[in-house]
């Protein structure tokens, strides 16, 4: 059992990231206030903002920029979150996202994709445990399309205006007609809510 866990941890720590939806939007409890966050993790650094669709409304728009310093490419993510249930102990949201890639090295590539996800938050306004599932489709100017599939787990805390979170995601990119590639990433994030 411990050997299997060690093997799984090794795979997750050494797998490349990328091909993912936003970090800020992968939460079941959609913030009613504007917020900004910076995040950094095992593969990438970046930051983003999320603003409610309307003051105190049941959804939010978000924008993130991330740089994958291991694989050296940049990614922009535009997200929309919908609060599906009222804010209770178990709170559900749905997300849609568009992402764009710029891959500079070698044959420079541009990529674009679309994602959809479901996020469940367990907890209250101060602390939540979030689980999420995300599927997407992405295409690049230099290669075949890929279908990212992800499961995520996050711990999110809010202390006054300060936001803190630890999140991880793992899954695979399915490349139709070819293979799959495992993916994993963990990030720590800190932010501010107005």
């Amino acid at each position, binding site marked *: 059992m411990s050997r299997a866990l060690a*093997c799984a941890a*090794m*795979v997750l720590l*050494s*797998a*490349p990231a*990328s*091909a993912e939806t936003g970090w800020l939007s992968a939460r079941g409890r959609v913030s009613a206030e504007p917020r900004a966050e910076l995040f950094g993790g095992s593969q990438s650094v970046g930051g983003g903002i999320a603003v409610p669709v309307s003051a105190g409304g049941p959804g939010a728009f978000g924008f993130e920029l991330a740089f*994958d*310093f*291991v*694989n*050296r*490419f*940049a990614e922009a993510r535009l997200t929309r979150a919908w609060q599906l249930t009222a804010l209770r102990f178990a709170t559900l949201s749905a997300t849609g996202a568009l992402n764009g*890639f710029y*891959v*500079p*090295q*070698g*044959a420079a*590539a541009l*990529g674009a994709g679309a994602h959809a996800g479901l996020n469940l938050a367990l907890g209250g306004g101060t602390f939540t445990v979030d689980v999420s599932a995300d599927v997407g489709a*992405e295409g*690049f100017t*230099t*290669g075949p399309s*890929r279908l990212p599939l992800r499961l995520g787990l996050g711990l999110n805390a809010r202390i006054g205006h300060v936001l803190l979170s630890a999140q991880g995601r793992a899954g695979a*990119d399915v*490349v139709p007609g*070819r*293979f*799959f*590639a*495992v993916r994993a990433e963990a990030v720590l994030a800190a932010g501010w809510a107005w």
Partner: protein
Amino acid sequence: MGRAVPRRLRFVFGALALVACGPAAPTRGTVLGDGVAEAWFEVRANATDLVPVRVVFPSDEAGVPRARAARGLVFIQGGLVAEGRYVWLARALAARGVVVALPRHVADLAILSAENGRAAGGLLRDGPGLLAGAVHPEHVAVAGHSLGAVVAGKLMLGADFTSVSYLAGYPEASDVAALSAQRGPALAIAGTADCTAKLPDVRGSLSGLGPLRLIELEGVTHYQFTDSDAQDVSSGCVPGVALDTAHRLIADALFDFIGARP
């Protein structure tokens, strides 16, 4: 003061470009001896993944490739066996004129990032730096050891490689029909003393695969395909031949096959 801001901006953009663009492709390698050198490249797989690839090639004393339009081989590592443990084989083949690429894989499990092998094949065909023109683009084969043999079979199905070699392993059962239909040249090298990919299993798994040449090496064990057979010995799997002998037999069999391909 008015000129200071653009300089800062130039520095910032310069630093970003350095980070984003990465190292240039090497134009010469590190000499390993016996007319062989190695160099590291980075290649993109799955559009965004940077894959380190070790390339071992015939060279002069300065590490400059001697090969022009040579045969190329992408070698896929066995499961949880570092790609560096096959450098002995790459060196033996490069000493005979073959350019060998050893791509790294996630957690040393090629099955988790099989596309890396295809990207390494592209590197040999269209490589920058010292690889420019070194390999004939229509003479790139693929080989794999153990679990790497499964991946080698899958890569062969992509029609990017001219032949496939299974070392102490065999393709996935679900790929056998398609590989047979493809009728690409195939070689299998098996050790009669292999305790992991046992000879009857290898024979059985390859029985439906054709055309295929199976070479059975007397006394050779599973890990003698790597740089050490200590793992065999510690598990009670006693080799019937010395490691050096096994290496010579394996390299000869693989080169005879790759070298004979048109």
